[in-house]
């Protein structure tokens, strides 16, 4: 093995140490910057109370509004959520988001057309939330409901 010159050894050692420090700092730096991106949705609470089942006429999606406290970063803010609740038989209820899956505008149930309508880009969703026309990439988000003593609660999101 060839003997390395003193100058070359010191030069390589310095480069290695500087590189080591840079890596030692670089990895936590990336973790630090990426950190908040890891937190993903969820409801933020166990159950969101909506209201009595008696408010939902059979076959007519009905909008319920609920306010939850959500903590983002170090700030806790009241956030208003809305869900369309539908029932075909008065016993089984389904809930879906009123947020258009295209770019996040709020959709509205238009009774005489039997469709959810989004005003932003003329999207339409069918009664069960599937895309009827327009640009949305997927159906409206569905939520899991539970009924206790005639009261509706949103308890989770149904992953498609």
């Amino acid at each position, binding site marked *: 093995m060839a003997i390395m010159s003193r100058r070359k050894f010191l030069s390589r050692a310095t480069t290695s140490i500087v590189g080591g420090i840079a890596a030692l700092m670089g990895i*936590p*730096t990336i973790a*630090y*910057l990426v*950190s*908040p991106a890891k937190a993903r949705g969820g409801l933020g609470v166990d159950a969101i109370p909506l209201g009595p089942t008696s408010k939902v006429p059979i076959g007519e999606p009905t909008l319920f509004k609920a306010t939850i406290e959500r903590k983002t*970063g*170090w700030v806790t803010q009241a956030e208003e959520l809305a869900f369309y609740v539908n029932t075909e038989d008065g016993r089984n209820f389904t809930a879906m988001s009123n947020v258009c899956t295209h770019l996040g505008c709020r959709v509205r149930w238009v009774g005489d057309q039997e469709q959810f309508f989004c005003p932003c880009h003329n999207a339409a969703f069918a009664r069960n939330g599937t895309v009827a026309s327009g640009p949305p990439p997927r159906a409206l988000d569905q939520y899991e409901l539970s009924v206790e003593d005639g009261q509706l609660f949103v308890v989770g999101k149904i992953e498609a």
Partner: protein
Amino acid sequence: MMEKVGLWFEERMGWKPIWKALALRNIPKVNWAYTLGSATLLVMINQILTGILLTIYYVPSPQDAYSSVAFITNEITAGWLIRGLHHWGASAMVVLAGLHMIRVVVHGAYKFPREVTWFTGLGLLAVTLAFGFTGYLLPWDQKAYWATTVGTRMLEVTPVIGEWLLRFARGGEELSAVTLTRFYGMHIWVLPAILLVLVGIHMFLVVRIGISAPPKASTREEEPEEDAEVKA
């Protein structure tokens, strides 16, 4: 491979002579005390990088300052590390700059022709202390609040303009949101700008004039030896 890439750039940028002048310059035979300046520079780079990272989450308002710092420390990945490096680095920088100055004084390295290096060095020490003072308020906890209350109060004893200085430093009669934002602005914009200018001059002179050799204990006969170094 790397050599080829290096050559490609060298052909177009010609930075080798500059690199040689900066990093491969000749220096006198020195000891470990001569690394204090470089150590201060390294900690300064640490302060700049971690400081930039802290501004990603920190908010300089009385409502948010404390909780955003707590958020960095407790919830962001490696936030404790970044903040810790900035916090301890601040103290380390003051200590290292102080030791560096003591070395220069003891060796008489401030003498001709290095007076300007010395003056910018004094400026850098003052800026470093100002960094420490303004940065101390930013976490907006009890210790920060009262330290700044006491610290700014000292300005008041200045003859004639004392009262005005106090109000200038606080941005009003009392510590408030205005104090916090002006300390923040000083800390992240004004002081770094001054620091970089001074460091630039300081480093330029270190390269341009070269550093002084450690003084030798001379006997009476061979006294006027210092002049030789100046001519060289």
